């Protein structure tokens, strides 16, 4: 850390992260970004879903057959920076003993099990708060910790359906079956979880009291649909998929540009921007056209208007369209793909991507922090951990176990740094 900068906000706070997949692990990384010492406790020998063999894993060098594939998965490594990584079989009594020692020296415990699983594993809040009375425990299940769906399992794509979001983000006049899955409740849950933990830590700093946070990922996302929900309760309206169009505004769309699969988003939100669009595209006749004389006419005749605009964008590169329109004060953005992102001059100027070296995956540019605390050091301190990378440090240095004890845990398969073939090969 540079000498002139204050300590990171959560320096001195220790977090046990037992979460899996996306929402929880990213929340753990964000707490790590803020300076907490995050210990990721991974189940062993059962691999977590994101370390498991499968499709869409993103193995480094695109090679699933190189050594240590579980450490080389982009799916896993994207959400697990700034953590110390240990493995532990808590179903074994020695594993549970060690786990309770870890809890005893920690301030926060985060888990994202299906509701009810923590109780079955012996790590629910009543047990954890016996181990450490002032702990802040975060449980982030799909539907919350009680109620008739206790025990129901979900990934973000299912929760996206349950909240109705799946049905709102398709092409106009289509049914949900044509809309691809997304995991947006994970994105929403991760940052809500960080806010929740910090809120509880704030209270604990003043009162010394810990508490339990029950975060249903469905419930933490539903307020994000508040505008549509209010329209439902006020007017009985059920939202329809609008695609790239807007309920009130036009022109408002995604237009094809020159080249292969290149697109730009143009969203005109007021009269001034409309006139600027006509001007910069050198189509003053649009502004004169009676069909487009007012916002209602433009909305009513948007098929023809969109076609005319696309006639102009098709002649041009997406970045050129964005720059021309932005210079004229019209909201326009190129649709960037993965390649464009890494080349983008703005992200480069802000130093967004961070180069990290990973012992199994090699050196790559990683998407950076979600925010800039302008007086804090924003550089990632720890690359995504390999399996059991910090077993010796955490069990030896932090818990004071001897080399011999740690070796015996390894021999019994309670901890480890590699998955046995029979576990990893079976998906």
């Amino acid at each position: 850390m540079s000498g002139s900068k204050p300590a990171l906000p959560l320096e001195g706070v220790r977090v046990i992260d037992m979460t899996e997949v996306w929402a929880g692990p990213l929340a753990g990384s964000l707490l790590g970004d803020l300076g907490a010492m995050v210990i990721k406790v991974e189940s062993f020998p059962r691999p977590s879903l994101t370390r498991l063999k499968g499709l869409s894993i993103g193995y480094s060098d695109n090679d699933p057959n190189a050594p240590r594939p579980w450490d080389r998965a982009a799916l896993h490594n994207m959400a697990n920076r700034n953590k110390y990584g240990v493995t532990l079989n808590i179903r074994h009594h020695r594993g549970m003993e060690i786990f309770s020692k870890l809890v005893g020296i920690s301030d926060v415990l985060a888990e994202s099990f299906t509701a009810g699983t923590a109780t079955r594993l012996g790590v629910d809040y009543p047990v954890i708060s016996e181990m450490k009375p002032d702990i802040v425990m975060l449980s982030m299940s799909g539907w919350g910790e009680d109620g008739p769906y206790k025990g129901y399992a979900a990934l973000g794509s299912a929760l996206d359906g349950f909240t109705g979001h799946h049905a709102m983000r398709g092409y106009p006049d289509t049914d949900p079956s044509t809309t691809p899955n997304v995991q947006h409740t994970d994105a929403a849950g991760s940052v809500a979880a960080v806010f929740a933990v910090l809120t509880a830590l704030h209270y604990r700093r003043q009162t010394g009291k810990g508490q339990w946070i029950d975060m249903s990922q469905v419930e933490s996302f539903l307020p994000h649909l508040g505008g549509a929900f209010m329209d439902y309760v006020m007017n009985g309206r059920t939202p329809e998929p609008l695609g790239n169009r807007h309920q009130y505004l036009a022109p408002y769309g995604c237009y094809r540009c020159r080249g292969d699969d290149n697109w730009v988003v143009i969203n005109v939100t007021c009269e001034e921007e409309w006139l600027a669009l006509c001007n910069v595209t050198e189509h003053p006749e649009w502004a004169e056209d009676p069909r487009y004389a007012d916002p209602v006419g433009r909305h009513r005749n948007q098929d023809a208007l969109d076609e005319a605009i696309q006639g102009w964008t098709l002649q041009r590169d997406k970045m050129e369209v964005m720059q021309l329109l932005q210079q004229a004060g019209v909201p326009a953005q190129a649709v960037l793909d993965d390649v464009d992102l890494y080349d983008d001059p703005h992200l480069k100027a802000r130093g967004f991507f961070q180069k990290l070296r990973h012992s199994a995956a090699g050196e790559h540019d990683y998407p950076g922090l979600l925010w800039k605390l302008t007086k804090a050091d924003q550089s990632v301190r720890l690359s995504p951990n390999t399996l059991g990378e910090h077993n010796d440090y955490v069990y030896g240095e932090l818990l004071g176990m001897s080399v011999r004890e740690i070796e015996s845990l390894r021999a019994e398969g309670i901890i480890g740094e590699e998955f046995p073939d029979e576990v990893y090969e079976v998906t």
Partner: protein
Amino acid sequence: MADQALSDVRVLDLSNNIAGAYCTRLLADYGADVIKIEPPFHGDPSRRTGPFPNDLPDPEKSGLFIHLNGNKRGITLDIASSAGGQILKDLVNRSDILVETFTPSYLPSLGLGYGDLESVNPKLVMTSITPFGQTGPYSNYKSTDVGVFAMSGRMYVHGLPDQAPLPYAPDVIWYQVGTTAAAATMGALFTSRVQGIGQQVDVSALEALIGNVDNRPLFYAYTGVKTPRQRWPGGIPQGAYPCRDGYVVFGVGYDLYFRRLCDAMSRPDIYQDPRWATIQARTENAEEFEAIFIGWLMEHSKGEVFQLCQAQRVMCAPVLSFEEMMQDPQLVARSFFAETDHPNIGRLPTTGAPFRMSQTPWQTGRPAPLLGEHNSTVLCDELGYSREETARLRAHGVI
């Protein structure tokens, strides 16, 4: 009223529209004292955005404004006037947090940039939310939620291969950014309270998205292969499938879950068939499987499919409408939905707590403020202006 976690935190909300307002709504609902500062006469732009009851526009009846600004007090202030700027500084002096969403050059042009406010209150956390951040070549670019999403890389992969990339539902990106800003603000509050050091928090909506709503950029860095727009990125069945009375979303790529699904269908023979025995084989023979699968689904309601599948621990859920959600046994059992009692629109259901804290409750108390509703309380009772002085400020359009 029980203790709330943030009841000692004072917040000024100088933001427009959704992201900043949702950030401060989160703080308010967990106990912070939030003062929403709106421009005189027009107020926040979200007052002019729908939905309105019966679609009749009225700045005191906007469903969006009411959703975003409950539990806040509201004042009007022309911060561009010298008297208004001074009142803002007086408020900053007694606040922990200021949230704003102006283009980066605007507040400095009024003498109210972070440097100016830092000298008034060195412990201030000033959270600045913009589409592209406080610095860099796009920092003054205008953008909607769709525009930021377009640049995040996620839109490119969202949709069908031969059609335009698609956005998410209207506004959800701004809520995502607002939640991110709330987390970052709480982080900075720790530095302020523990070390006595305030700072500006630069929240670029674009960066808040790239690092979170999309886990694909690192795939490209690792593999050198660009992710295309596609329907089945992780094996089948994946997506929303029709059943007798609606749709159910599945995301069942791995063998283990596929076997459980076949068990739920009472068709263990399917996963024993070499056409569907592995994830690769299932992707190659997707359409044949889907024909059988949809045949089974059409014999059941979405509630039945949900129960049969969850009994086998298959990760899936029905696609619900708001009407169905308000009657859903889980959301009803947990009493998720809350209610607001607003002077102009009466009692209406609202969405409830994003998370529950065992010691310090989420509370929905005060309805969203009417324009300038708390001018007198804040200026007279808290800042010590006299009634005559507030009348003078009002006459000059400062409040």
